[in-house]
């Protein structure tokens, strides 16, 4: 068996909310293999987003380790972390697009960061936007797009640098149910047809049903796992 794409060992995170220490993660062990589609469910404050930030190399654990393709993230310096993030596709709950850039501009920027040339990244950005069904909207700015469209741009952006896996934080949290369904279809398609490894944190039961695996998180601990 090949090494897991993502592995966490006894992951703990405590942060201060004002004066009060909050134990967001209390020892999470997780293994995600290549091609997996994992949904992590749980109530607000259960530590889902914190876990996702750790896996996305955006935050550092208080204790325990995160391995991305067998590399211990805690040993990486600032620059190496930046390089690592380029290989992780992040889709945020609030889209987090750059408002002044068009849909294509946002996708292109992701490829400009590792230094891809202008013609190549333009071509690829257009292809990606076509994949997510936004061929007609490439020149629109985020403010001119609907919530669902913005989320599609965010997914196209997350895929731009051929990431090792996709991290999605409540991808359907801010869009209507019909659009949410389309997004879920798109994500499922990416996983099944393109073999993209996906970890999604959500409240949405629909996603949990479509995923290959679903885990329930409560109070910073994984308490239940279900394989579809």
């Amino acid at each position: 068996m090949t090494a897991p794409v993502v592995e966490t060992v006894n992951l703990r995170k405590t942060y201060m909310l004002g004066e009060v220490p909050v134990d967001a993660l209390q020892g999470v062990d997780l293994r995600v293999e290549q091609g997996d589609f994992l949904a992590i469910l749980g109530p607000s404050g259960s530590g889902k987003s914190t876990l996702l930030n750790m896996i996305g190399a955006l935050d550092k654990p208080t204790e325990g380790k995160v391995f991305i393709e067998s590399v211990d993230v805690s040993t990486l310096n600032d620059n190496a972390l930046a390089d690592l993030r380029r290989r992780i596709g992040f889709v945020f709950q609030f889209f987090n697009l750059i408002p002044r850039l068009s849909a294509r501009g946002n996708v292109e920027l992701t490829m400009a960061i590792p230094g891809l040339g202008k013609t190549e990244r333009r071509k690829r950005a257009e292809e990606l936007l076509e994949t997510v069904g936004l061929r007609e909207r490439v020149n629109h700015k985020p403010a001119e797009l609907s919530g669902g469209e913005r989320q599609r741009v965010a997914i196209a952006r997350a895929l731009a640098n051929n990431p090792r896996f996709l991290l999605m934080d409540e991808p359907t949290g801010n869009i209507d149910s019909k659009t949410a369904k389309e997004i879920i279809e798109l994500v499922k398609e990416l996983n099944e047809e393109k073999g993209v490894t996906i970890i999604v944190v959500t409240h949405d039961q629909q996603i949990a049903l479509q995923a290959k695996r679903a885990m329930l998180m409560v109070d910073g601990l994984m308490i239940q796992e279900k394989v579809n």
Partner: protein
Amino acid sequence: MKVRDILSYAFGAIRLRKLRAGLTTLGVVIGIAAIVALLSITQGLQGTIAEQLQTGFATNTIIVSTGRGFGMGLDTITAPESDFKLLVSHTQIIDEIEGVDISAAEIRKSGYLRSGEQEFMLSIVGVDFARYADIYSSTFVARSGEISLNPENEAVVVGKRVSDPWENGTLLCDVDSTVEIIWTNASILPPKSEIYTGHVAAVLEEIGGFGIGPSDLSVYIPTSQAQSFFGTDECDRIIVKLENDDEATIESVSEAIKDAFSGQVSVTSSTAVLDIITSVFSTVELFLGGIAAISLLVAGIGIMNIMIVSLMERTREIGILKALGMKSRTVLSIFLSEAVIVGLMGAAIGIASGWVLANVVARVFSGGGPMQAGNRAAAASGMTIVPVLTPTVILGAFAFGLIISVIFALYPAWRASRLKPVEALRYE
């Protein structure tokens, strides 16, 4: 990330807030324009003065005085206090010195010239016409009439502006006019006005400037006449023409003259005067440049202020960029690039507007402008300032604008680059 992409990203961020960027740039523009205008005017003025000095004060001449008369300040300090008097006859001593071609004594008094009903304030200068014409062969030249080298007693030579004081063709006097030259002797009691009646033999070519040699605002009478008219053998200074104008000759003759008068005279060469003027101007330049630099400093603080505001507004954007894998130094580069773009644009516009400003000021000051007062002041000094914009000033202004922008952007840019992705993304 490629440099071109960094610049284009930075440029996009600036374009998003045009008014804000414009006002920030304006700060730099004003600072740079002030520096460029002040420096190019001062340099122009310095050039004009140096040039006029050389016209009126041939480089192969030196001036001997007791230190009380002409001396540009420095000599007054070094000149010995004594009863020593520089006499007209001292030219004979000087003429004997090795390296001296010829010398001429000047007796100079303030007075006025009356022609018919009109009077005109001027300098009355007693000189040996032949010697003076030899020394100042380019300026002591007649435009009309003839400077008699062996003058009749009442012959006088007048400067251009004595003949035509209003510069409009209405002449106060001209060749063949009979004029009265009046001088008030205040050394006796009661003071007595002495009147000398002269016959205008020649009008000089226009000289311009504030020449140390012949001037547009003087009347020249023969030495012997001056001696009896002013009742003195004392002269104000002796102009010495050297055989050549190399440093060594100037040096050796100056020393020889000082020795001949036991150190009781001061000797001034044109090079020395130029040196003094240059040093005065460097000080003025530094002072004015310093004042202008303060405005640039203010502009720098403006840049810093706006960058910090921008940093707050864009915290989330920085979080996104970092989550996408942008390195801290790239974030730093983006913010610095924004400052560099503002600095360079400000410098370019500033240099151009400073240059325009300098020309406008110079024109007004030189009498070409509509201001009557400016006209008159400039006309009196007869100066035309041509602002000078040297490559050094241009490069310096660019560099200064750039350095100020970058220095003040360093802190905000550094803070932006240090933001933690998670915290930045959570920032509302």
